[in-house]
């Protein structure tokens, strides 16, 4: 465990633990919904990367904005979203965060500052940077965090956005979740040179951190967020992490690009939840029984939300041409 300064507030630690378990539980249920053919379409699992989203989002407020990715359930939960609206969205139901119009890959929750998941790899680099521009333009101290994967470092937009963010000293943090794979290809096969050096070339302060260590991620995030609020941004973080599932839930047979041994090693020896749990117990911040109670409570919440979403109603057909424009109720009428 990292030598992160022990927080005085046990509640904060337990909330971080609970948020990580909520992400894992959400993904386990989403995976089951897919496997049992109850969920339309595909989805991309965040399992294994929980410490990244939770470590960073726990350093943010609802006024701070994030942009998310196709692997975005973790960011959404960590930023404060509710299970019920999330499962409804995954199942295309009217009560979903986007009334079923976005789905897994476009889930957005602006009430907690989540500007939405983006299904174009690297597509939100400009959006997060723009949110930071608003913050600076309006004289606020809000920070924007741009979550993206190692694969997005191959998109030109990232360099254009980082260049302007550095020129204009915008309060944006680029959070590169390096899970080792760009879809079905090893990152080392698609990224030449160093990833943090890309940001450093623009004069952006860049850090690499163990993305499986929630305390280390959170400590770094707290520090950088505070500095960004003071106008010292932008910053860049490369978070070394791992995705337990394939690129998406249908990517089952993946031994041609990575071995089962490798997957087992990450799951058994570097799992962010197991690591944090044992730290909490060792430090005497929670008993095994208390931890189990949290787990059971989250599991129950998730099961109830799934049940609710399965029975929730779909949007009315008349919604199909609503929300095309803000000022036209039915675009095709």
């Amino acid at each position, binding site marked *: 465990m990292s030598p992160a300064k022990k927080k005085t507030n046990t509640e904060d630690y337990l909330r971080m633990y609970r948020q990580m378990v909520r992400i894992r539980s959400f993904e386990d249920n989403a995976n089951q919904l897919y496997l049992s053919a109850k969920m339309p379409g595909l989805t991309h699992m965040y399992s294994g990367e929980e410490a990244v989203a939770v470590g960073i989002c726990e350093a943010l407020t609802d006024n701070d904005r994030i942009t998310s990715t196709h692997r975005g359930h973790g960011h959404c939960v960590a930023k404060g979203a509710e299970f019920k609206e999330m499962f409804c969205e995954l199942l295309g139901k009217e009560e979903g965060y986007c009334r079923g119009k976005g789905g897994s890959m476009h889930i957005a929750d602006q009430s907690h500052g989540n500007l939405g998941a983006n299904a174009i790899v690297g597509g939100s680099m400009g*959006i997060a940077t723009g949110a930071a521009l608003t913050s600076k333009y309006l004289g606020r101290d809000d920070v924007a965090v741009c979550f993206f994967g190692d694969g997005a470092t191959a998109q030109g937009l990232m360099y254009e956005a980082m260049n302007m963010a550095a020129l204009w000293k915008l309060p944006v943090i680029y959070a590169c979740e390096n899970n080792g794979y760009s879809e079905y290809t090893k990152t080392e096969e698609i990224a030449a040179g160093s990833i943090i050096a890309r940001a450093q070339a623009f004069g952006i302060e860049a850090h690499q951190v163990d993305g499986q260590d929630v305390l280390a991620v959170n400590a770094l995030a707290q520090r950088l967020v505070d500095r960004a609020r003071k106008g010292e941004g932008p910053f860049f973080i490369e978070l070394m992490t791992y995705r337990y599932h394939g690129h998406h839930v249908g990517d089952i047979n993946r031994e041609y690009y990575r071995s089962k041994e490798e997957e087992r090693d990450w799951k058994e020896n570097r799992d962010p939840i197991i690591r944090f749990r044992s730290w909490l117990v060792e430090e005497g911040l929670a008993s095994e029984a208390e931890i189990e109670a949290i787990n059971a409570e989250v599991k129950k919440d998730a099961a109830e939300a799934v049940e609710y979403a399965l029975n929730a109603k779909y949007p009315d057909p008349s919604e199909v041409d609503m929300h095309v424009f803000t000022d036209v109720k039915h675009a095709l009428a």
Partner: protein
Amino acid sequence: MRNITLSQAVNEALAEEMRRDETVFILGEDVAEAGTPFKVLSGLVEEFGTDRVIDTPISEPGFMGIAVGAAMTGTRPVVDLMFGDFIFLIMDQLCNQAAKTHYMSGGKLNVPLVVRTNLGATRRSAAQHSQSLHALVAHIPGLKVALPSSAYEAKGLMKTAIRDNNPVVIFEDKLMYNDKAPVPEEEYLIPFGVANIKREGSDITLIATSSMVQVCEAAADILAAEGISAEVIDPRTIVPLDEEALLKSARKTSRVIVVDEGHQSYGITGEIASRINEKAFYHLDAPVLRMGAMDVPVPFTPALEDLTVPTADAVAANARKLVSGEMIHAA
């Protein structure tokens, strides 16, 4: 009423809106001290400073994306895209992000931004600085598209665009920046989706956009001398489109030519002609004709470039055929 140039009209619209609403700002290449290559924005940086008239690097996708994020979070950016041809560079941010955000979020997120750019050939600028690409964006649900045809429209439509809560793309005719037209001193807005009957007529309707409105007015003059009364209608915005006004005129004259500077195939002219065919068929006394730019990249040499766009003479010649009842197989 005073006469001012289209450049001045756009400049006034931006200045008025920036004074009215502090969340409005401009970003783009060489917009501040340079005032753009066409000098449309000259003077704005002096009044509003570089915080609100922001020079960007030559990074169209980057500053377009930044504008989308800024618009989603409480400001009203006006993106200056130096040439309409560069719209290909910003397609993902404009069409996948800005256009879809309101819908994908179930109506929870808005993207109130304006992209102001231009169209129009015959400036001897060759194939990558002469295109009229408004049909590309008009095809994407979620984007509004305005095509001012004079200084008056340029000001009124720009002010409406800035106040709109949706992404709006305005294409100005870059050959018209120095053309003067009467523009009121007092403030006015031009609502979207309201066509303007530039000239009333009874024998044939010429539906014209942007640069082609002048061309069709000249064609109407030629025809008038021959005793043919042509009505010229400018839709002013193609999304939303004032379909009813166009149909009404079609029903009145029974003959229609649609003229637009975009490439003729798969373009605005085909869309409008098709709607008239579907909804005013039994009022048509002749086939609806399309006249667009030739389906070729815009050539550099004046000897060829001038052949690629519709002219007043060509419009008049087609109008004559329709009115005389000549068998039309192709325009």
